[in-house]
């Protein structure tokens, strides 16, 4: 086992912490930074509940060592809204009643946000493709897909 001093910027806040080589980023975010919005759903990259943003890219924090994330600029679901102002994806999810139990939702809005940073006018097929790594057992996805389309339209000023 080795120990490492790492620096993380999470939701704009800088953290310096010592981690063991086998600590996972998801568990550091949840248990040490108390950012429990990112969820454990499978631990093996299959459900997307642990998705976070590394810069503008979505990443599964259950498959990243904390030490690998040294120097990263991370946004978790807690960091998407600007104060009380939800980001367009979150707002569209709320407006379209796309949330049920909510457990997949942090990962889903993170991944959708990454999509819209990359492509501000995704087609339905592109959205489905982009979200295909995020399981939702409750909703059947339809309201979520619609929400992403609505959010994109809003971001384009339509």
């Amino acid at each position, binding site marked *: 086992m080795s120990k490492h001093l790492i620096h993380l910027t999470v939701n704009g806040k800088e953290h310096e912490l010592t981690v063991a080589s086998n600590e996972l980023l998801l568990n550091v975010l949840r248990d040490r930074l108390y950012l429990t919005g990112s969820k*454990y759903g499978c631990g093996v990259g299959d459900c997307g509940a642990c998705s976070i943003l590394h810069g503008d890219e979505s990443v599964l924090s259950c498959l990243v060592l904390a030490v690998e994330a040294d120097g990263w600029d991370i946004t978790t679901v807690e960091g998407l809204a600007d104060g009380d102002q939800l980001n367009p994806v979150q707002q569209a999810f709320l407006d379209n009643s796309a949330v049920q139990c909510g457990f997949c939702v942090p990962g889903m809005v993170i991944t959708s946000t990454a999509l819209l940073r990359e492509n501000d006018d995704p087609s339905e097929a592109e959205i489905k493709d982009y979200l295909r790594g995020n399981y939702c057992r409750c909703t059947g996805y339809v309201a979520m897909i619609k929400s992403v389309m609505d959010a994109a339209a809003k971001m384009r000023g339509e």
Partner: protein
Amino acid sequence: MTVIGTDVARLDGIAKLTGKQQYTGDILIPGMMHAVLLRSPHPHAEIIKIDTSEAEKMGAVCLTYDDILINGQAVVYNERSVSVPAATYRDRTILPNKARHLYEPIAAVAADTEELAYKALQAVKVEYRVLQPVYDPQEAMEEGAPQLYDKVYLGDKEVDICNNIGVSRNISQGDVEAGFARADRIFEQDFELPRIYHAQLETKGCVVAPEPDGGITVWATAQSIHGNRQLLGRALNLPLSKINVKKIAIGGAFGSSIQVNTVTPICAALALKARRPVKLISSREEDFYSHQKYPVRFHVKMGVTNEGMITAAELSALVDFGAHQVQPLPFLGCVAGWFASLYQYGGNIGFHGTAVYTNKTPCCAMQGYGNPQTNFAIESMIDIISGEMGFDAIEFRLKNYRGVGHEFWGQGPTIRTIIKSCGVEESLLKGREIMGWSGRGRHTDKQGRIRHGLGVARGFHTSGTGGPKEGEVIDYSSAFIKINEDGSVDVVTPVMDLGGGTWDAIAKFVSEVLQVPLQRVGLSPTDTKSTAYDVCTHATRGVYCGGGAAYHVALEVRKKLLETAGRLLNEHAENLELVRDDDLGQGVVYVKGLRDNQMTVGEIARQAQINSWGTLQYAGSYRQKNCPPCFTTHFVEVAVDTLTGEITIPKVLIYGDCGTVVNPELFGGQLIGSFGRGMAYTLYENLTMNEEGGFTTKPQAASEPIYTSQPVKDGELLNHGALADYKLPTSSEMPLIENVLVRHTDTYEPTGPFGAKGIAESAIASVQAAIANAIYNAIGIRFYRLPITPEIVLQAIQKKAVK
């Protein structure tokens, strides 16, 4: 304007969207320990000895069978407590002294970190006496098969278990033989449904904090906080007043937490022993082995006249429920009920159900409690008969279905109601227009590589388990509602919202009754100490029963409000009017016809306080005296690739009858989400297990090498409990969103709050048969088993072509 039937942002929406909603796993308590479970590596074994000394030297606290004894005796219970004790089989303890399925927890270890707990776990030594397992339910009943139990309890009685038969039930009505004798043709067919897994996104977990008074505070993945509390009280021998189970959001349930999760009593016992808070969260792999959906083998027999009347029907069901009873008794009753309530069958019904212990993961309810299983068999059968006898499948259904005025069995034979609202006819007639039923063609007309087919099936579920008479199942709910001194309202309900929007419905009912703006209705965070009993959010009872209780309590508060207003306005309460005033953002009360002499609800409440008359509040329990069915109809279009056997669903129409639609978008969410799960059940999901070491080792169906990167233990799931190899549909598998059509029927349930009944579980009932019927329409091949995978389809297509 009423808030009922409008779309408003759900109460917990912002919390869930910003990551601030707490779930059980998010609870962090300073000084908390982390627990992990030691699980049996054998599917069937006596535990001779457990040595935890090395683990304890590492600073761990361990829990074994010996720790759970109270006066030398282990408390035997059933995790599911919604049935009355006399109809509840009890066969399990917090930890067992015999493992009855692979990976059954047999000891628990808590330490300062999860990592340390795992390391300590590896230091625990267990001595087993390995026993022969039995996996197949038919084999389990054979002479000489390994016995999982000698004795269990039914209520307070000890009962012997013979040939592993846990429960058998025979239920009949009318004269089945005479009915068959009247038929022109008799149809018989077998159907089989697999074991599947809930795959709720939050794995089961629990956090327990011991309190200084010797009590405990509990956060758990639960569909019923009171169910958890009562079981913990019994299992730990603690007064209920010392157990506080907190209401906390749950990340999906689908029935998996109607019963108290296996981890919960273990975690509580461990926390009491450690005298420190303990957190125990299942890994996904463990969760796969905790509970699964009931697999069923059916035999269906129906008699039909040439005029298209079903004269009698008989259903046999063989259920393999695994190592513990999480209530196959009411399950069998319900299967009989769903079967009996679909069609009239000339009043002649026979049901024979047998449920058998096997060395597998215990089965529990999963959206529909036997309903999707039964519906697949019956609604496939209806399609078969229509085809064979040349009836139109919709007309045949309309002739035979049970609708208004007929009896509905809401929870087996002891909970019955008369149907008062029914959207079956509307959904079938309108649906066939929308989907172009008459143009669907016969499979013999279809050509080309990709063949399309249209199928229909209809189903229902109960709304709650209430009824005019009390039966096998407990059903009532409670609420406490008070008007605050500024006119805002607090609602305290024990009812859990599993994500469907139950709390929003409750808030809307209260808003409507008390004429307070919805924004001023708050749902209190609460727990078992400050609420009266609610049985559980199961059986699609949240809105109808939980909401019904809140509705009735709100009516009492309204009565008090008007009486108090009368005192202040010098008028009889009957002469007063209560309306919402959106400009004031409040309810106002005035003397009928005299709008200028009015008081706001806030002023009334405040005056009641200043005058020391007391708070405008009421607490009460309420039982619904009916269990109205909510109906659904599915029209599904499939496209079958005849070269690869792949099936896609280009279009679906889902009709739901929930009476008054309280939350339209959430209603749609229930129907579409259920469709997704139904699609998964029909086309993808299956828990395949390595059954090599079973009682009579049959040669494998195909003598082919099974390659997996890991060896598979006897009794182990081939996917090793990994979600990666348990495929659920993703966003990419769903039809185009414009082709997912959702409609509601124009119905009103007279016994429901504002005409509402439930919807949730009904929404999956008929998905399976609708897809299978559509496949038949596309390629002329009938599938009697789920899942209908490309492998099975292609094989069937090739076989048919050879013929």
